[in-house]
C-alpha cells in the first residue's frame, strides 16, 4: 500500500504542473487590469503604469510564469497584489477558518445522511422512506445562502439564541455548520439509499439470507459495508467541494475563509493569490481522492492496490 501511496503522490507532480499552466493562462486571459483596480478608477494613468512596472505586470506572460514557478519551487507563492502580504501567509490564515467550517459541517452531516439513507432503503416504500426522502430533497433544494439567512433571522434576530456571524464561540459554529452540512446530508442520504438498495439486490445478500442469517447481520455486515464504497466516493467529492466552495457560507456568516478570498481575489485580479488558491484546491482534490481510494481497502480488504 505504501508503494501505491508514493506512486500516487508522484503522479500529482506532472498533474500540478499542467494545472499551474492552465490556471496561469486562464487568469491572465480574463480581461481586467489589477494595476487599475489597485489604483482606483480616478487614478492618474502614470500611477497605473508605475504599479504595472513595480509588480512586473508589463513583462511577457512567459517571463511572469517562469518567475512564478521559480518562486513556487523555492516555496514562495509570491505576494498578494492587493495587500502586499505573502500569498502563503494569506492562504494559511484563511485556511484555518475554512477547515473549521468544513469540519463543523462534516462532523454530523455524513453520519446523519448515511443513517437516513440506510433507514430509507430498509423501509423502502413505507411512510418513513417518503418522509426521509422529502427531508433529503428539501435539503438539496434549499440553497445554502437562503438557509443561512433564514437561520440568522430565526435563531439570531427573532430568538436571540445564536450569533449571526463569526466563529468566536462554539455557538457561532452552529448555524454555519448547519448551512454547510445540509446539502451533504441530503446528497449522502440519497446516495446511500440507492447504493444500499442496489447492494441488497446482490447475490451475496440473497445467499446470506438463504443461509438463515439474521436480518440485522445481513443488513449491516453484508449490505451496508459494501454500499459504503459508492457513498465514500461521493463524500470525498463533497468535502473537496466544501474546501473550495464554502464561499456562500463564508459570505453569509462573515467568515474570512478561502472561498471568500478566492472571490475577492478574482474581482481584484490578484493573480498570485488566485494562482495559489487554485493550485491548492487542485492538490486538495488529488489528496482527498487518494484518501478515498485508500479507504476502499479499509472497507473491503479484497481491494488490492497494484
Amino acid at each position, binding site marked *: 500500500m505504501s508503494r501505491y501511496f508514493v506512486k500516487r503522490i508522484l503522479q500529482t507532480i506532472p498533474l500540478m504542473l499542467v494545472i499551474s499552466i492552465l490556471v496561469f493562462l486562464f487568469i491572465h486571459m480574463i480581461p481586467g487590469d489589477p494595476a487599475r483596480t489597485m489604483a482606483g478608477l480616478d487614478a492618474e494613468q502614470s500611477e497605473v503604469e508605475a504599479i504595472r512596472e513595480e509588480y512586473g505586470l508589463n513583462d511577457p506572460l512567459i517571463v511572469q510564469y517562469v518567475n512564478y514557478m521559480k518562486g513556487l519551487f523555492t516555496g514562495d507563492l509570491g505576494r498578494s497584489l492587493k495587500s502586499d502580504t505573502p500569498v502563503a501567509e494569506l492562504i494559511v490564515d484563511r485556511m484555518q477558518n475554512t477547515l473549521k467550517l468544513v469540519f463543523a459541517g462534516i462532523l454530523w452531516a455524513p453520519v446523519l445522511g448515511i443513517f437516513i439513507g440506510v433507514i430509507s432503503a430498509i423501509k423502502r416504500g413505507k411512510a418513513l422512506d417518503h418522509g426521509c426522502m422529502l427531508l433529503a430533497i428539501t435539503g438539496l433544494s434549499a440553497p445554502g445562502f437562503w438557509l443561512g439567512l433564514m437561520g440568522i433571522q430565526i435563531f439570531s434576530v427573532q430568538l436571540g439564541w445564536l*450569533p449571526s456571524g463569526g466563529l468566536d464561540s462554539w455557538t457561532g459554529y452552529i448555524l454555519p455548520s448547519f448551512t454547510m452540512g445540509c446539502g451533504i446530508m441530503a446528497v449522502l442520504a440519497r446516495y446511500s439509499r440507492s447504493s444500499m438498495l442496489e447492494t441488497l439486490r446482490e447475490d451475496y445478500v440473497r445467499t446470506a439470507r438463504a443461509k438463515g442469517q439474521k436480518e440485522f447481520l445481513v443488513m449491516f455486515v453484508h449490505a451496508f459495508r459494501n454500499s459504503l464504497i459508492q457513498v465514500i466516493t461521493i463524500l470525498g467529492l463533497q468535502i473537496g467541494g466544501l474546501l473550495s466552495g464554502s464561499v456562500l457560507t463564508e459570505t453569509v456568516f462573515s467568515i474570512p475563509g478561502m472561498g471568500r*478570498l478566492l472571490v475577492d481575489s478574482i474581482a481584484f485580479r490578484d493573480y498570485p493569490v488566485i494562482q495559489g488558491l487554485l493550485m491548492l484546491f487542485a492538490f486538495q482534490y488529488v489528496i482527498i481522492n487518494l484518501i478515498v481510494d485508500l479507504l476502499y481497502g479499509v472497507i473491503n480488504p479484497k481491494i488490492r492496490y497494484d
Partner: protein
Amino acid sequence: MPQKGEKMKKKIALILTAMLTVSLAGCGGGNDKSSESKKDDTGKKAVSNVKSPDNDMVIAVQTDATHLDPHVSSNGNSNLVTNSMYETLLAFDENLEIQPLLAESWEMSEDGLSYTFKLREGVKFHDGEPFNAEAVVANWQRGKEDESLRLASSIKSWVNVTADSEYEVTITLDEPNNTFINKVTQVRMVSPKAIKEKGSDGLAKESAGTGPFKLADRVDGGYTKVVPNEDYWGEKSTLDSLTFQVVPEDGARIAMLQTGEADIIYPVPPIQVEKVENDKSVEVVNLNGLTYRYVTLNQNYKLDDGRQPLKDVKVRQAMNYAFDSKAYCEVVFQGYAKEPTSLFSEAVPYYSEQTPYSLDLEKAKSLMKEAGYEDGFPIDLWVDNTTLEMQGAEFVKQQLAEINIEVNVLPMESTTIADMTSAPENETEVEMWYVNWSPGSYDADGCMRSILHTEKFPPAGYNTAFYSNAEFDAALDKALVTTDEKEITESYAKAQEIAWEECPWMFLGCDNAIIGQKAYVTGVKYLPGGSLIVTNAGLNH
C-alpha cells in the same frame, strides 16, 4: 383509493403550509423582540433600547480596507479605517467646511503658488516620534519617490515642501490650484521613522499615525480592531475598542444591527431600510449622497448604416426627456435618491442648479423626429452585474423603449468593465455605460474633469462619452488655476451649464448614503457620502 389520494394531498398541503409558515416567520423584518434585552453566548451585547452592554464599538462594513498603509490605498473603505489612526493637516467637517487638524492655521501666498501651514505643537505619532515640519517633508518625499503610491497623485502638484521652522511648513505648487486644500485632506501623515524602517509591510501590522486610535489587531478580510491612543493630543476616546467588521452580505449586516452585534452598519441598501426603520433601538441616518449615477453616451457610436445618432445633441436630449428620474429614484432606490439637477451632487461645493430634464415624452419624440431618428435605433448598455445596477439598467431600457431606442442590457463583472472602458477611442466597444462617480475629496473638479474633459479620453481618464467641448474644458481649466472665489464659482457654473445642455450622459440620479446605528451610539459624525468621523465616538453604556 380516491379517498387515500385526498388524504395524501391534505397531508402534503399541511406540510407545505408548515414549511411556508416557518419561512415567513424567518422573513419577518423589524420586530419587537429585537428591542428586548438579550444576550448570546458570545458575550457580545444583546439589544437594549437605551444602553449598550459594553464599551466596544463595532462598525459593520461591506468591504475590507485594501491596505492599512494610508499612502498605499485611498478608496472609501480603506479611508474609513485608516482615518481612525491617521490624521491630515486639514479635514472636512460634517458640513463640508475645511477645519484645522494637524495644522492650526494656514495662509495662501498672493500668487496662489504657496501655502504656509502653522502646525500643531506637542503631537506625537503612535511610535513616539514627534510630528513637525520635517515629518510633513518626509511624507511628501515618500510620494515623490514612489509613483505607485496613491499618495503620489495627491501631492502631484507640490513641487517643493520646506520646513520653515519646527512647526511651520510651506508647500509650493507648480501653478495655482483651487483643489489643493481638498487634496491636503487626503494626505495622511505617517511617522517618518516608520516610513523609513517599516515601509508598507510594517504599516499593515502596526499603525504610525497621530490619530485617536492605534491598530490593535487585524484579520485580513475579517476585521480591523483599533484601541484608543493614550497619547492622543486631542480629547481621548472613551471607547475600550473600535472594530471595523467586514460583513459582505446585506442581510447579515442588517441582522447584526438588529441583534446588537454591530453598533453601526454601512451601507444599508435602500431595499432593506424598512427592516430597521421601525425598530426603536435603531436610528437610520439618511445622508446626502455623493454617488452620482449616469449613463455615458459614446458619441462615436455608429449604426450599421453609418449614422451616428449620439453625435446629435437632440438625440441625447431626447433620451434625457424620455427618462423619468423621479420614478427611477422611487423604484430603484425606494425614494432614497435625488433627481439630478446638475452634473454632480448638490452636497459638493460649487454645485450649480440646472433646470431638470423632467419626463416629457412628447418633447422627446419630437426631438427624435427632428434628428431623423423617429424609428429609434438599437444600442448596447454595459452595466456591473450587481442587483442594484442591473435594476437601474433595466429601468433605463424600459424608458428608452418609449422613444423606440432598443437597449440591449449587457451585465458584466466590474473589473472586466473597468478594463473595457479604459480602451482608447478607436478601440472601445462600449456604446453606453451605466455607471456612477463620486469625488474622493469633495471637489467640483474631481466631479467633472476625469469623466468629461477632452484630455481624459480613456485610458487617461474615464470620459467614455468621448465628449469634447473646448468651452467646457476652458471653464474647468480656468477654475482650477484661479484663486478668486467668485471666478471659480462662475467658471464651474458655466461648465455645468454647458454640459447639462449638451447631455453627454443620461442624467439618472444621486443616491443617498444610508447608515444604520444603534440609538446608544454617540459622537459619530457623518459626512455627505457616508464618511465617518469617529474621533469622539462613544457608546451610552
